[in-house]
Every structure is written in structure tokens, then in C-alpha cells.
């Protein structure tokens, strides 16, 4: 059991010199300690100027995505011991603009999510908004979309995506998985209207199925599968 590891943390402050550099910290560790706890040790005991975004510490709020030893991961759900290394290298998520240190800007990411109309679209809007009706759903119908509803919008898939890195018009795995989640919900009635905008340009079709998105998802969502299913629907129906 190691008693101490080295954290190599990328620092960046646009208010200072605006240069990126690595800073090293020695962090005492214990069994079961997460990378987030290591970073909090740095912030609270060594250098309070370190900026981190975090909250729930249970892989549910999606705040603490960052590059840890080169891979996008949630800091709160990555045990230091599982990295099997004496040096933990921590950098902000790729494919996102940096705000400060490990904190990145999610505006474009959330805009892309919004652009796929991630909500139930119904013909019976009055019933949907005003009634006391219950739409029925079977287990089989639920299973068709529910795994895609596990998405916590942490951005790990977006950071891992090689297409997002080169083509900003590509919606990315998160938004596309959500497009499929609502398309596949038996209660949704938008149908082919959801597919039409996806058939144009590179918003969907640029994906070349590297599937790195599915590998890094901390919630077991398979965006690559969603993209494949969406593509099939687009080709068949629109």
C-alpha cells in the first residue's frame, strides 16, 4: 500500500498569465480514497487557489469529469489505488474550453443537448399538460430507452469523441443518445420529425464508430449503440 502519491495537476488562470502549466503536489492516501478526495486535500490543505467543479461525490451529479491519467473519468468515482500508479495526472476535459484549472465550459455541450428537443412531444398537448391521464408503458417499452436515460451529462463521452475534436457541428454522443432516448420512448409522438434534422450535414452522420464514448461512460450508457440505431432509423425512415 502506497502512503503518498504525486498529483500532477494542470493549472490555468486567465486572470494571471493565462499560461498552462503543471503543478505537482504530494498527497497522503489511504485505502478507498478517490481522486476527488486527493484534489480536495490539495485545495483545503495546500493550495486553496485550485479550482475544481464537484458536488455529489457519488457519480450522479456529473460535475467532476476530468482527464485522469489521460482518460476522461469522474474524479469522485476513480479510486487512486485503481490507477496503479505513483503519479496521478489530472487535466481538464478535452473538447471543452477551459475556464480555470480543471473547470471547463459546458455551454456548447448543453446547447447541443437542447437542440435535439430532449422532451416528450405529443399530439395531445392539452392532455399532456392539463389532464390527470396516465400514459401506460410496458416493461418492454421501458427497456427500449431507459439505458439512455441514465445519462448524467458529465461530458466524458464528449471528451472522448474523436469526431467532436475535429468537427464542431457534430452533435456528439451525449446529445445523440438523448435524441434516441426520446425517439424510442413509446410515449413520444414526434417520430420522423426527430429524424429529419439529423439526416442533414454532419450532425449525426460524421460518427465513425470509434465507440470510445461508450467505453468511458460512468453510467453504462452506450451512446455508440444509440447512434447506430438512430442512423438506421434515419436511413430507413427519412
Amino acid at each position, binding site marked *: 500500500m502506497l502512503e503518498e502519491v504525486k498529483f500532477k495537476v494542470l493549472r490555468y*488562470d486567465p*486572470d494571471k498569465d493565462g499560461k498552462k502549466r503543471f503543478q505537482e503536489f504530494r498527497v497522503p492516501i489511504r485505502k478507498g480514497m478517490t481522486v476527488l478526495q486527493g484534489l480536495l486535500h490539495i485545495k483545503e*490543505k495546500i493550495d486553496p*487557489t485550485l479550482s475544481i467543479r464537484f458536488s*455529489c461525490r*457519488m457519480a450522479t451529479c456529473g460535475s467532476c469529469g476530468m482527464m485522469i491519467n489521460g482518460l476522461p473519468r469522474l474524479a469522485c468515482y476513480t479510486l487512486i489505488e485503481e490507477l496503479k500508479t505513483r503519479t496521478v495526472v489530472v487535466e481538464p476535459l478535452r473538447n471543452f474550453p477551459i*475556464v480555470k484549472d480543471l473547470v471547463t465550459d459546458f455551454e456548447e455541450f*448543453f446547447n447541443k443537448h437542447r437542440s435535439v428537443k430532449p422532451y*416528450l412531444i405529443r399530439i395531445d398537448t392539452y392532455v399532456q399538460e392539463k389532464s390527470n391521464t*396516465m400514459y401506460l408503458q410496458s416493461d418492454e417499452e421501458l427497456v427500449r430507452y431507459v439505458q439512455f436515460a441514465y445519462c448524467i451529462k458529465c461530458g466524458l463521452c464528449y471528451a472522448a469523441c474523436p469526431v467532436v475534436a475535429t468537427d464542431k457541428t457534430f452533435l456528439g454522443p451525449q446529445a445523440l443518445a438523448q435524441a434516441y432516448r426520446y425517439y424510442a420512448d413509446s410515449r413520444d409522438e414526434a417520430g420522423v420529425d426527430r429524424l429529419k434534422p439529423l439526416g442533414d450535414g454532419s450532425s449525426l452522420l460524421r460518427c465513425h464508430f470509434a465507440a470510445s464514448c461508450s467505453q468511458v461512460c460512468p453510467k453504462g450508457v452506450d451512446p455508440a449503440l444509440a447512434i447506430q440505431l438512430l442512423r438506421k432509423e434515419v436511413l430507413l425512415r427519412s
Partner: protein
Amino acid sequence: MGADIDVDVAILGSGLAGLRAAIEAARTGRDKLVVGVFTKTQVMRSHSVSAEGGTAAVLYTDEGDSFQSHIYDTVKGSDFLADQDAVELFVKKAPEEILQLERWGMPWARRPDGKIAQRFFGGQSYPRACFAEDKVGFFEMSTLYDTSLKYDNIVFYPEWAAVDLFVENGKFKGFAALELKTGKIHKVSAKACVLATGGAGRLYSFATFGYSSTPDGYYMAYKAGVPLKDMEFVQFHPTALVPSGILITEAARGEGGILVNAKGERFMKKYAPEKMELGPRDIISRAMYNEMAEGNGVEGPDGVKHLYLDLRGLGEEKIKTRLAGIREYCMHLAGIDPIDEPIPVRPAAHYYMGGVDTNIYGATQVAGLWAAGEVGCVSINGANRLGSNSTTECLVWGAITGKAAAEYVLAGHNHSSVNNSDSIAIEKHVYDELLGKAPRENPYDIRDQLQANMERTCHIYREEKTMLEGLQTIRNLKQKMFRGVVDSSRYYNTNLMNVLEIEMMIETAEVILVSALNRRESRGAHARLDYPKRDDVNFLKHTLAYYTEDGPRIEYVSPVITEYVPTERRY
């Protein structure tokens, strides 16, 4: 100079109550009103996402459940301190909210007939907790956030933390918000406001709360002259994972999980022979404390005692389909698979029954200011909240307050304008007193001392002597030289945000201790060793704590009792 931003309805907070309020305000004022959602976190990060087990509502009266039963369970659970008219409103509105979420896309678990499934929760005498695996809060948040994106008149201001409310002549007119990304303090003008910032959060070291849960809303309202009600009632959830404090949902017991001590005994039979593990949280947490105090706890690796939650009797299938989330946490963060091994648990601070004093419709004493969810105290929870009622409360009062706030603006209520003098105090504090000034004492150490103090002096059991020590410690902490922020950067300065939070935590902890000291009885979650009996003659009352420069001033007001006369609580 006037305000930097002008909205019609401001929602502070983007958890369940905040999002529900935003949608209701937006649809009430469609094409007429702009609704701004100002939230300290990014969207979808609020701690509501961590609610796990269920949302209570009476759905099937034809199958045996009834409004009356949910009302009585809630009132009895509250140790008769809840306002019974509010509980009645709550129970009657709850089913609408479950169904509305359903029609917005919530992936509720289903019965074979395609209708929404329900399960048991503690203190509820019928299986009335609607659920979606054990990720209920998360799915509710996703559903509401996604649905809010339909509305062009909802504008999100993520990572804009409200830090000071502007109230003039008893009327709300706006607030100051710290934009984390740029470090600017903005003056926001709003005609109406719904506070939905959650409870007091991490005042205790062993807690289920996320790090962003701090008492910002409590403190801002208190400072602005609104009393805090019933703050002595802090709920300790019986089952938090050791050592992280991550919540292990009560649904684990609702599905059949049992609690055992170091000797392997199912000890709840001594404390709640009828309901056993499905008694209310206050009773189970006390039972667990007693077991550990009597030497029946298990010694953890770090010397902290715990007990076991045993799910092995449920079988693999049930755990994998209905409790998948907690299995994940146990496996990943504690190296335990609940299918094969019992889970090490102990009680953790989880919920504040008290909050910003409101009337039955969530309105505060300040015109134009409402409060909904954990930050508010209507009160339906009284001295002890029942599991699965809090997410329902967020939905019900989110909807009520969002609508009321929008209607208030549509009715033409105006307020005086926001000007420079409104934000002078907070700007001076942040820019002159805090930013870039190295404090003599580490604020994070002060926070640790505060949490340790609350754990020691105002926990599951309380008594005058230790609470007086606790209050003295809090007052000493106030005087410590921690007010300073080493980080001088304007951009994403969480060091600054943390110091502001710690100041608010200290003030709120003081209110809890003073309220608890003054309540010389035991009721619900407030268990005093020196006053072990409930005292309806003197304390069948809500505590109201008003801000003064010398600490809180305490007053009392009677709860609304319509039908159910207080009796002894047995489970």
C-alpha cells in the same frame, strides 16, 4: 446604475423544487413573463439528483390506499407538529404531480398492467412510493430539466450563486448574484422570487449531502428578516454507507432489507416491534445509536462504529432491478456486493425539517418572495419527515409557488427599482474584505471544526450542557480570523464561494443550536436526554428564529390542527 439583469420571476436553485417552479411559472406566464433560473451549480448538478428511493402519492384509492391514510401517516410521522391543513393540501396535490411527471417522460417503474408501480417506505402504512429503480431524484431532475427546455421564456443562469436578497419596505425587489465564471457580482431585478436552494446541507461531517449543499437560502432569507422555523429538527437517515456517508436508500428496507448488530441480532424488534425496519427515521436512527452505545456496534477499520444493513434475503434479481444504484455504490466505493455481503451503515445527517417560514402556499412574510422544497417550512414535516415525502413536497410546492409567483407578476405588482446602494454591502465584503486577503486561519479548518462541533453537541441525542458548549464553540468560530480568500483570481474562484458558504453555515448552525436549546422536550428528531418526554402543553408549537445582531430571537406559534389530536406514537 440600475440592475444588470431584469427578469419577471427569479427562481433561486435548480433542484427539483426550483425546476418544477420554473416550469409552472413559465407556463402560467407563457408569452408574457421571463423566468430566470439562477443556480449555484451547473444545471443537473443539484443534490436532488441523489434522491434515491421513491416519491409518495396516493394513486390507487380503488385498491386500498386513501388520502386519509397518507395524511395520518405524515402527521403521526411528524410527531404531530405538522400543519394538518398543509398536509391535506400536500396529499391531495401529490398524485397530480406524479402523473404530470409521467406525461413529461419520467421512466417510472411499471406494474404488469402498465400503470405506475409503488413500494413500501418507512412510516407509510401503504406501499405508496412511486419509483424508477433507485434513481428517483435523478430521473425526476432529468425529466424536469429536459421539459424546461421546451420553454423559450425560461432562461438559465448556471453557476450564478445568489448571495444577498434585496428587500425594501417588506417587499422583494431583487438580489445580488456571484457569477462564478467571471467573479462579477450582478444586481438582478425581479418582480417575484421563489427560493429553492435546498436545506442547510453539510453542517455535519457524516452526512449524505453533496458538497454544494450549504444553507445559502436559509441565511439569505433570515438576514432579510424572514424567520427560520423549526430549525432544531434535523433528520438523521439511518443508513448511510461507511465511511463515505453515501445514502443507502430506505427502499432497501422497503424491499425487505433488515438491520442487524454485531451479534447478528435483528435489533429493531426491541424498538419498533410492529413496523421493525419500516418505522420512521427518527426512531430507527435512535435505535441504531443505542445499539452502538451499548456495545453492539461493529468496529470499522477507521475506529468508527457501524451496524449492518442486510439485503441478502432479497435475492439477486430484486437487488439488480430495484436497487441497482446502491449496489453500484457499494461495489465501487466500498468493495462490497450487497447480494453476498451485508452493508456497513450508520446514521448520517440527511434532511432539515425546518426552514424558511412560509404559509400554506409557500409565501414568506416578504411580499413577492416564496420558498419551496427543503429550504421552505410549510410545514408538512413537523418534527420528523417521512421517507418519500420530500421529493413529493418539492414537486407540489414547486408547482404551487411557481404559479403563485407568476400570477403575482401578472397581477401587476411592482417593486421599487434596484440601485447601486443595494449591493454595496456585499460588494464591499467580497472585494474589499475577502478577495486576495490571506486569512490567519484556514477557513476549511474552521468548517471542519464547525462540523465536528455539530456532530458532538447537536446530534441524534441532545442535552443542555453539551448544547451550551456547542453554542459557545459556534460563537467562538464566528470570531476567528478565517475571513479571507487566498485566491485573488476573478475566474471560477471557489475559494471565495467556500468562505461565503462557511460564514452562512456558522450563522445557521447557531440558529439550530439556539432553537434546540429552547425546546425543552423530546419530539420527533429532537431527542433530549434531559427532557425525554414530549410536552404538548408547552411545546406543541413551531419555533420561529428571527435574525438580530446578537443572535437569533426566538418566538413560538401554534401548528394548525384540524382533525388529528396528538397521541403517543407507536410503531
